């Protein structure tokens, strides 16, 4: 089993109102969570990215955590206070250039002695593009084309130094990039930093199957996980890859209690914190695509229909089929007599593992045994102490049963993940 820690930040699951919630930006918060993950012998620490502040109804979204540091800079600093933990940065392939990013990633790999990873995301919305020279020029259809050539080009640059330390000029001439010169950083300890992919479309899965080492997914239930796992692993053979070459790691949340009942109680409390009255209306507006601020969160769902052409929400993934989602929510609300807020709480639950440490350890183990996942990216709801309980209480059980390592056996992230050294293509 592989385990990673996601720094809780800009998303509606992070509970900033809890009295135990600390700074989202001070380095001490990042240090605490990373050290906790390393104490738990986790594979890696993960930072998400967002290149523009989200907007709702034409204004900056103000209900969830807003703001975050730049990933690679934080990870380089974390390399100073950790020894073995992998350090994964989400960096957009659309608003960066291969030469510069390959250099920054190779630098992190050197400075951390082989612990760097890159989560390749692909935003193409013009909204984000307004912060960049390039603008939002990229069609949805083209973003994985660029991402694939981006990763391939980065690997050419990483291979442009021989393993014994000689730099050789490179030339890459393709539809996306036409570049040449000499790379300034020698081959790094991992050869190539680990590549992670997050994105769920057919193109996204294909991209991951052809080129990624890890895939970060949202499929957190056993059944959805098994389907996704079979689908993605099934795509590997046509690229000449083995099932173990790509690790599938869903993002999951864990809520613990001394007993299963207590954990359920804790989970309900956290849900109530996550879905404040204001957030309930917001969640509704995200589906309906309309200003619903006049509605009472404790009252019934609106009887008007969603606006499928709405641009109310900017900077976050849109609800795929708002009419269908609205119909589902209405049915639930009517069947159980739920208010807006209760409906949102029940419909958007993301808590995958709820129970006593024994229950959670068993469930996690079952997911891996049943081919629903190779491991998990844990997304705590509290900063920075949100993984303390998991590391203190669940990890020892996983270690006792042999499901998870008790000590790091190697020093690089590739070795933690059981990934082969990339073959040098000179």
């Amino acid at each position, binding site marked *: 089993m592989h385990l990673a820690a996601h720094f809780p930040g800009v998303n509606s699951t992070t509970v*900033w*109102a809890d009295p135990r919630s600390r700074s989202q*930006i*001070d*380095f001490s918060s990042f*240090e605490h969570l990373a050290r906790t993950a390393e104490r738990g012998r986790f594979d890696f620490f993960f930072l998400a990215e967002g*290149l*523009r*502040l989200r907007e709702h109804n034409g*204004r*900056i979204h*103000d*209900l*969830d*955590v*807003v*703001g*975050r*540091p*730049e990933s*690679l*800079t*934080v990870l*380089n*600093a974390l*390399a*100073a*206070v950790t020894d073995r933990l992998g350090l994964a940065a989400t960096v957009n392939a659309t*608003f*960066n*250039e291969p*030469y*510069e990013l390959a*250099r*920054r990633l*190779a*630098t*992190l790999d*050197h*400075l951390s*002695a082989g612990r760097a990873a890159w989560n390749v995301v692909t935003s193409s919305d013009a909204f984000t593009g*307004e*912060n*960049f*020279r390039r603008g939002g020029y990229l069609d949805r259809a083209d973003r994985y084309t660029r991402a694939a050539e981006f990763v391939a080009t980065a690997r050419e640059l990483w291979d442009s130094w021989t393993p014994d330390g000689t*730099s050789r000029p490179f030339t890459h001439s393709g539809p996306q*990039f*036409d*570049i*040449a*010169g*000499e790379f*300034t*950083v*020698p081959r*790094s300890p991992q050869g190539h930093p680990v590549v992670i992919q997050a994105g769920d479309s057919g193109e996204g899965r294909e991209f991951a199957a052809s080129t990624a080492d890890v895939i970060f997914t949202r499929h957190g239930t056993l059944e959805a996980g098994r389907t996704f796992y079979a689908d993605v692993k099934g795509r590997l053979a046509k690229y000449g890859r083995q099932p173990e070459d790509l690790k599938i790691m869903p993002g999951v949340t864990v809520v613990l209690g001394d007993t299963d009942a207590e954990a359920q109680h804790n989970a309900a409390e956290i849900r109530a914190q996550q879905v*404040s*009255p*204001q*957030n309930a209306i917001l969640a509704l507006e995200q589906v309906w695509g309309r200003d619903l601020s006049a509605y009472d969160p404790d009252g019934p769902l609106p009887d008007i229909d969603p606006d499928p052409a709405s641009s109310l929400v900017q900077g976050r993934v849109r609800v795929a089929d708002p009419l269908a989602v609205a119909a589902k929510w209405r049915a639930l609300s009517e069947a159980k007599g739920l208010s807006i807020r209760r409906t949102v709480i029940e419909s958007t639950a993301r808590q995958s593992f709820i129970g006593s440490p024994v229950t959670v350890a068993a469930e996690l183990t079952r997911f891996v045994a049943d081919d629903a996942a190779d491991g998990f990216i844990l997304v705590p709801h509290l900063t920075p102490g949100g993984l303390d309980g998991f590391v203190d209480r669940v990890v020892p059980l996983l270690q006792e049963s042999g499901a998870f390592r008790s000590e790091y056996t190697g020093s690089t992230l590739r070795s933690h993940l059981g990934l082969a050294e990339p073959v040098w293509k000179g």
Partner: protein
Amino acid sequence: MSATRPLHLAAEIGGPPRYDAGSHVALARLAEQGTLDYVTLDDSFARPGPDALAVLARVAPATTRIGLVPTVTTTHTEPFHVSSAVATLDWVSKGRAGWQADVSATEAEARLFGRRSAAPAAALWREAGEVADVGARLWDSWEDDAEIRDVATGRFVDRDKLHYVDFEGGTFSVRGPAIVPRPPQGHPVTVIDGTSGPAREPAARYADVVHVRATSPEQAESLAGDLRRRAAAHGRDPGTLRVLAALTVDLGDAETAPEPGLGSGPRPAGPGTYFRGGPVDLAEHITRWHRGGAVDGFHLTPIAPERDLERIVNGTVALLQHRSLFRTFYPGGTLREHLGLARPAGRLAAASTSEPQS
């Protein structure tokens, strides 16, 4: 300028390319022992070496007081990313970050990116100025107290304290606001080498610290005077501009080298005037120029960092401290405090609101 102005000292820790963290950490700690204001790490896309900002981020938690100033280029990079990365360096170092803005002038560098061809220095420096300008606006795009965590209204931030920058430069535009909250120093320190003609204007307008290359105190004084006049013309208080003379330092193998002083003739590569001599000679040189009021201090580039920085700290700095010309401890925690520069107030507070302009 009066001789009682505090002396500022900084040192480059680059030199031959090194890719591990250990040597950089050791050099930065050495400079910190000498209570230097800051260390710089030079960078370019065109010659061997790691990403400088990344290296100094790696150094940050391994040091406590020294300022950290990587070279960051503005020609082939994204202004929004540059601003975010420098702000983040300030967060991870708790207020010790700066950046030395530089341009990429060669066709070879342009080919590494394949987006645009090489341009004349004047255009590149105009753009560098715009990058410094928009960078500072992005740092100001969050008011210091924008994060409110108001449980009663469910709001994490007060969106009226977040501001779009809507910057239109000659080669780029940025909408904003920043994704990184306002950094601890308000503005991390901006450093520019203002010796060359095209760099002088952006240096005078946007830099907090200007490095100048001069072979005599008179030349340094005239450069500094020019920079301060230009700064004043931009409405700045010229007294808030720190001017440091760049000196490439070769402290040789002897306590006192045979020919101390500024060398002439062919020089080893490196910024600034070439100084060869012993640690004591260097202290004399620094004292003379600083007493004369030509400059606020020195940016020293040791020829052989391991050897020369040790001599600078244990020889030159120790002597300057003994003569009470240089401080023996850091009275403050941030780079701005070392430099005697105030923390700037945010400028966008009343300028706009988060309502989109239509």
